[in-house]
């Protein structure tokens, strides 16, 4: 963190920073201080830059500056075919790449008008929930670390490591998975992978309780979060919060329930809400949501049927690699899809899923070509960050760190 002078700050940013005060530009910096937080600050969870206007240690105004990780994925998407974009979705929310893959595949499938076979959909459901658990574990751990409890971080990352091991068996990659395909998944879930999932969900709950015992009764942890960064339900909807941050304000809105995709309508689970709307409530929502995810995974494992994991639709779905090497028809289809794309009929769709951070949506416009005419990513972290100025106002500098941790933004997603 560094103190800035008037000349260091872009005039337009300065104007935004001073928007709600009656002090003039000339004497502003004499009474109050402008503090630069980020983009290299470890507690900003990535390259987020916050400009804080401080009076003493109280935050009077805050202007978030985004774009330090802007890679132009929406422009890239317009210049590649639908299949080629799947690996890029991994790099959006890099803490839960699997659920981004699923979201994108579902969006393209909706645009094309196809549906993956039931077994593939159950696998997708299991991996989205595991991704949610992994992401929430990082969120809980880093929130605790932000307010000074280091042990929790190590313990939750130990649990997350087990999920990464499952990814490793499932698709050969631990971090950027690219496991889903349009019309299914890359390969069937191996029995070893499913056995490991079963093992994981059996041992997870006691371990989570153990982590919670460290902090749930810890007075420092509670007091750093209780009543910090409060947002009411109406304000939360107005500012566009989704996901755990919205449910922490007592709004029972979960896309898995409101607009069921995959087979969530056949699964029994609870939408976790806490009424308080403060940082502590958002933490509780995340912890309880992982419990619900475990419940969902357990039911999905039971209900999962046998069968194909890739749709048989040669004009739209890439055939399996072994078939391309051994059969003429498949080779031709592969050639056509890779070179000319899957050409969905002209139209536009918006498909959103409940990712670990909130509503992750893809807005795709097709003109009938192999490449999308437009691909807009509605990223939950981006929208959730918009609430930061509102949340931090009137709090201390050290609370900014706790509030950011409780919102759990991932800059890969916010900056696209």
């Amino acid at each position, binding site marked *: 963190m560094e103190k800035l002078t008037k000349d260091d700050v872009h005039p337009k940013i300065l104007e935004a920073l001073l928007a709600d005060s009656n002090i003039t530009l000339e004497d502003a910096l004499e009474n109050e201080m402008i503090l630069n937080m980020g983009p290299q600050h470890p507690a900003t969870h990535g390259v987020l830059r916050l400009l804080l206007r401080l009076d003493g240690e109280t935050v009077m105004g805050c202007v978030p500056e985004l774009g330090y990780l*802007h890679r132009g994925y929406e422009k890239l998407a317009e210049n590649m075919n639908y299949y080629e974009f799947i690996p890029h979705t991994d790099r959006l929310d890099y803490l839960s790449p699997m659920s981004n893959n699923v979201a994108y595949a579902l969006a393209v499938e909706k645009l094309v008008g196809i549906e993956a076979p039931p077994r593939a959909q159950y696998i997708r459901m299991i991996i989205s929930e595991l991704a949610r658990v992994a992401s929430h574990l990082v969120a809980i751990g880093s929130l605790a670390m932000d307010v000074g409890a280091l042990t929790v971080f190590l313990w939750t990352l130990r649990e997350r490591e087990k999920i990464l091991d499952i990814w490793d068996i499932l698709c050969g990659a631990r971090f950027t998975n690219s496991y889903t395909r349009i019309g299914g998944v890359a390969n069937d879930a191996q029995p070893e992978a499913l056995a490991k999932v079963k093992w994981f969900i059996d041992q997870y709950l006691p371990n989570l309780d153990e982590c919670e015992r460290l902090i749930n009764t810890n007075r420092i942890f509670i007091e750093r979060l209780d009543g910090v960064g409060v947002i009411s339900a109406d304000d939360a909807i107005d500012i*566009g919060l989704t996901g755990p941050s919205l449910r922490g304000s007592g709004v029972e809105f979960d896309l898995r329930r409101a607009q069921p995709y995959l087979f969530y309508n056949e699964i029994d689970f609870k939408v976790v809400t806490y009424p308080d709307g403060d940082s502590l409530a958002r933490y509780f929502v995340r912890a309880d949501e992982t419990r619900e995810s475990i419940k969902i995974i357990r039911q999905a494992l039971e209900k999962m049927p046998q069968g194909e994991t890739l749709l048989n639709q040669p004009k739209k779905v890439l055939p399996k690699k072994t078939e391309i090497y051994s059969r003429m028809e498949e080779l031709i289809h592969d050639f056509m899809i890779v070179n000319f794309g899957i050409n969905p009929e002209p139209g536009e769709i918006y498909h959103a899923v409940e990712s670990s951070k909130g509503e992750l949506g893809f807005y795709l416009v097709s003109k009938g070509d192999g490449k999308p005419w437009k691909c807009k990513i509605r990223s939950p972290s981006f929208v959730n960050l918009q609430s930061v100025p509102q949340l931090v106002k009137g709090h201390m500098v050290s609370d900014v760190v706790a509030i950011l941790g409780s919102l759990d933004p991932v800059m890969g997603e916010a900056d696209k």
Partner: protein
Amino acid sequence: MASPKELLEQRLNEKFSGENFIFNEHRNELTVSLDKKNIIAVCKYLKEEPELAFRLCEDITAVDWATRKNRFSVVYHIYSLKMNFRLALKASVDEKDCNIDSVSSVWNTANWHERETFDMYGIHFNNHPDLRRMYMPEEFEYHPLRKDFPLMGIPGSLSLPKNKN
């Protein structure tokens, strides 16, 4: 009970009689095209009418059609928690008159979405409280998601930070 689509169609035509709304459905998603001068009135109505209650604005973006007469479409995705229904609103914006009224007075969240759209497409949002660029640096002159902006970027268009020493 009428379906959300029928209800919307009836209500909008009733309230804004004489206006030309085009209802379009693709893959079970309803899109309403409207004139850009009505955008605030329609959004306000959709949000405040208790039966419709589109309180959550999910996304605002634009599409660059490149060769059409009205080059841009600004697209709003709004959601009604009450009906569990998502609606897309579309308004055309011409390149020569490249502006549309800001809906950030209706939904707070529109602020950043509109900033992003302005940054990427150069569409000006009238009466926006803080219309700065979202991702690109303030000095950047172009709008990268326009179809005439090359994928490789424009050499020299991004200035390096000034050395203070």
